[in-house]
Structure formats: structure tokens, C-alpha cells
């Protein structure tokens, strides 16, 4: 690519128009609305396809352990025991989930567990809109099955630890690009 500069006019040189033009630009910039989001008070609402924190569904899970196998850092811990139940006179052996823990503090959110999950819809998925995972205690980031399913109840970081009422965040449309 080649940039062709216009010929320098005498007036441009004599009256320092380029400098004045620069001053004009900065003055215009002064009055433009700023895009900064003042985080704890204002929050961005992620778009529909945003991949945030996990969500787990106990009901859908068939305890096949494929996610644990797929996990490249082995942070999904699953314990299963077999149970026989009677369904329509027939004896049926089913796997029952005892433990489904994810050590989220070590997770890199590669979503391979979601890819590996055979159920439809997925019983572990990442298309949630939560990105506020910070915690004061590292033990808070070890999630069991129930926590993974209902982490919405978790107290959210508001920027003011002693605040009694969580201020309603002002959502900004447009979302994260």
C-alpha cells in the first residue's frame, strides 16, 4: 500500500494548519462519549454465545466418566456405584453418581469435557454468561455437583465486601466482542 500525501500548500506551512487541526481533533475527542465500563458499578452483559463458567445437570448425567477422561488436566473427579432398580418388572442396572467435583481453580476452560459429553442436551456445558469467578479463598473454587448446578446462589463480588444489599448492576447492551 502506498500513501500519497497531498501537496503542502503555502497556507498550511505559514499558518501551522496541521497543528491547529491536531488541536481541533483533541478538542473533539474531549466531548465524545467514553466507552469505559466502570466495572463493579457497571457490568457488561455477555452475548448469547459467551462461554463462561460451567453448568452441570445431575438429571441428565449418565455417569459415563467420558468427561473425566477427556479432561487434559484431570480435575474432574467422579465416583459412581451401581444400583439395580426395577422398572416394569424388569431388573435394570443403573449407574448412580456419588460424586462429581471439578477443581475449577485449575481449570483452563478448554471445554473438552463438554465436547466429550454424550448426552443430549449436554449435561456439562460452558455456554453460561458468568465470568465473575474471582474468590478470596482458593477452597471456594472447588465445586461439587450441587454447587456446579446451583452456583447462581453464590454471593457475587460487588466491589464492596461489607455491602448488605447487592446493588443491581447496570447492564450495558452490546456485550463483549
Amino acid at each position, binding site marked *: *500500500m502506498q500513501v500519497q500525501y*497531498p501537496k503542502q500548500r503555502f497556507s498550511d506551512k505559514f499558518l501551522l*494548519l496541521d497543528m491547529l487541526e*491536531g488541536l481541533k*481533533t483533541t478538542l473533539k*475527542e*474531549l466531548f465524545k462519549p467514553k466507552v469505559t465500563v466502570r466495572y463493579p458499578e457497571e457490568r457488561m452483559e455477555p452475548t448469547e454465545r459467551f462461554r463462561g463458567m460451567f453448568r452441570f445437570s445431575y438429571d441428565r448425567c449418565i455417569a459415563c466418566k467420558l468427561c473425566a477422561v477427556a479432561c487434559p488436566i484431570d480435575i474432574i473427579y467422579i465416583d459412581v456405584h451401581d444400583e439395580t432398580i426395577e422398572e416394569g418388572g424388569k431388573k435394570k442396572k443403573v449407574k448412580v453418581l456419588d460424586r462429581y467435583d471439578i477443581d475449577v481453580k485449575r481449570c483452563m476452560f478448554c471445554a473438552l469435557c463438554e465436547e466429550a459429553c454424550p448426552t443430549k442436551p449436554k449435561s456439562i456445558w460452558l455456554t453460561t454468561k458468568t465470568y465473575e469467578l474471582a474468590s478470596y479463598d482458593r477452597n471456594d473454587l472447588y465445586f461439587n455437583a450441587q454447587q456446579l448446578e446451583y452456583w447462581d446462589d453464590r454471593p457475587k463480588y460487588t466491589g464492596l465486601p461489607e455491602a448488605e444489599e447487592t446493588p443491581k448492576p447496570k447492564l450495558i447492551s452490546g456485550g463483549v466482542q
Partner: protein
Amino acid sequence: MNKALLTWLVWPLVKFLVAFVIVQAIVAAMNWVERRLLGLMQARLGPNRVGPKGLLQIIADPVKFLLKEDIVPASAEKVAYFLGPILPLIPAFIVFCLIPFGPPPTFTVTRVNVGLLLILALTSTAVYGIILGGWASNNKYSLMGGLRSAAQMVSYEVPFGLSIVGVLMICGSLDLVTIVRYQEANAWNFLPQIVACFIFLVSMNAENNRTPFDLPEAESELVAGYHTEYSAMKFAFFMLAEYSMMIVNCCLIVTLFFGGWTLGMFGMGLTTDVLLHKIPYGGLLAALIFFAKVMFFLLGYVWFRATFPRFRFDQLMDLGWKFMIPLALANIVVTGVFILIGQERLLYWIGIATIGAAAYFLFFARKPAPTRKVMHASPVSEAKV
């Protein structure tokens, strides 16, 4: 009380203290105003966390300076190191005695008939503190900053002084009050002395080490320049001196080129007589007008800082010696010729024409933007084996 004592000691002292307090308040406020305005011009918000709109930053910064540990380098030259921040502070404060903030005698501390010369002499001494501080820190970056500052201030003192000569020739006085009275009777000096006004504006920025010329404290090259080794209140003193000097220079440009405390040109509008005799509290209004003009130029400093990039050192020297000084000398000659042939009025029209032309080209006949031509890339040649 003795009347002489009252007129010569008590009143000037009170007035000076009032001016001093107001100026220091402006300096403290400028800290916040500058950072905020600079932020807004750079598409960000600036400090807005402390208090409403970040206003308590004005208090938070001095408190931080006071509470921080005062570190003195072990190998520093102690006496000079302590003198460094104090020396530029003293002239910066004294100068406020000489500036007419409003119509005399109420709003001037002292009226000296060589006031301008005295101000020039005092402001020039500020560089000693910077050199001393830079040298005494025993740090090569500080020394470089100090040396740069010395070279820069000496270079720009010349066009700074020469640009004032044109004004003096027109007004025929070194007394700042007389210069303002002349301007209210005729026109503000920036019209007949438009070139001088431009030179003054540029050298004023260079004198204060402000951004297009902030080589002494160029943080990308010299850490922080001459005040690298200064912390806590000593650093704050340097800042205080710099910002006080900025206000002094703004007061000077307002007094010399923009009609001081008066409003309106060619003998119209709010002149001293109207202000003092026709309007209640007119003197105070005059001081407020002066204050408003000074604030405009202070914001101008920030505006320049947001707009222009820093010069290289040789470019800075070239601009000073090869452009500003010849231009200032030419301005003196031209002004002298016009005064000699008795056609001073023509100078006004030159100024008006220049401003008109700049406005015309800036708003109606803009320079076409550079065009980008996409060159077709030559087909990738087969790799020769």
C-alpha cells in the same frame, strides 16, 4: 496603626497571602483537572474513584505526598539536594507580588514600573533549582535531565524575552498595569503582535518543560529526569514550583497579549473605568475576568499536552535557535518599521487577516486527507531451485 506601615507592609502582605492561597488552590486543583482532562482527550475517563467524579483526588494527592517516606540517596550532595526543590519555589511565589490581578491599587500587591523585567529576572532563576537537584542526586539520569533543562531554558529564554519586546515597543512601558491600560484603550496585543503571541505561547511551554518540550523529564528516556531521586514532599515541591510557574506564565500572557482584567476591544466593553465606577463590585468582576482568562490558558497547557508529541533534543534546539529567535527578531524589526512610519493600525489588520485566514483554512478549505493507493502485489515468483 501607622498609616505608612499599613499601606506599605500590612496591606501588601495580606494581598500577597490571598493571592498565594488562591494560586496554591489552583495548583492543587490543576493536578486533578489535568489528569481528568487529559484522560477525556485520550478516550478514557481519568481519575474518578476518590470522591464524586474523583474530586477528592485534590486532597488525596497532597496527603500521599506528606505521608510518604522521604528518601535521600546516600551518595547525594546533601545541601544542594535540599536546595534543589526549594530554589524554584521561591521565585515562583515572589512573582505573584508583581502581577496585576485586577485594577490597581486594590488588586495588585505592588506596582513596579519595571515589573515585567523583574518578572523575567525572577522566573529565569527557577532553572538553578532544577540543575542543582539534578546534579546533587548523583544519578546520571537526573544529571541529564538537569542539563537538558538548563540548555532548554536558556535557549527559550531568548525568544521569550524577544517576543515581549514587540509589546513593549507598542505600549511604551514595562509596567504591566500600563500595558493593560493601553490594551483597553486600543486593542488586545495579540492582534498587532500575533507572531510575538505565538512565540510567547511556544516558549512559555518550553520554559515550563511542558509536553511538547518536556525533555528534562521525558519518562521514556530519563526515568523521571531531574526529580528521579526525589520522593514525598520534595517531589511535591518540584511539582508545586512547576505548576506555579505555569500560572505565572498564564498570567503574563493574559496581561501582555489578552487584555489583562478587561473585556472587549478597541475601547469598547468592560474597561477599567466602567468596571470601577459603573458596576457594583466591578473590581472583583475584573479579577474574575482575569482569573477566567488564566484558567483558559491553563487548560490550554493540558490541551497542548494531549495533542503534541515530544520533540527530539536537536529538533528542540533547532526550533529555538533557527526558527523562534529569527522570527522574534523579524517581528521586532517589522513592528519597529510600522511604528516608525506611523502606521501601527496596519499591524492590527495583519493580525486579523492572519486569524481569519487560519480560521478559513481550518474550517472551510481543509487540506485533503492523504489518499491510500493499494499497489497490486507482484505475483509470487516461483522459488528458484
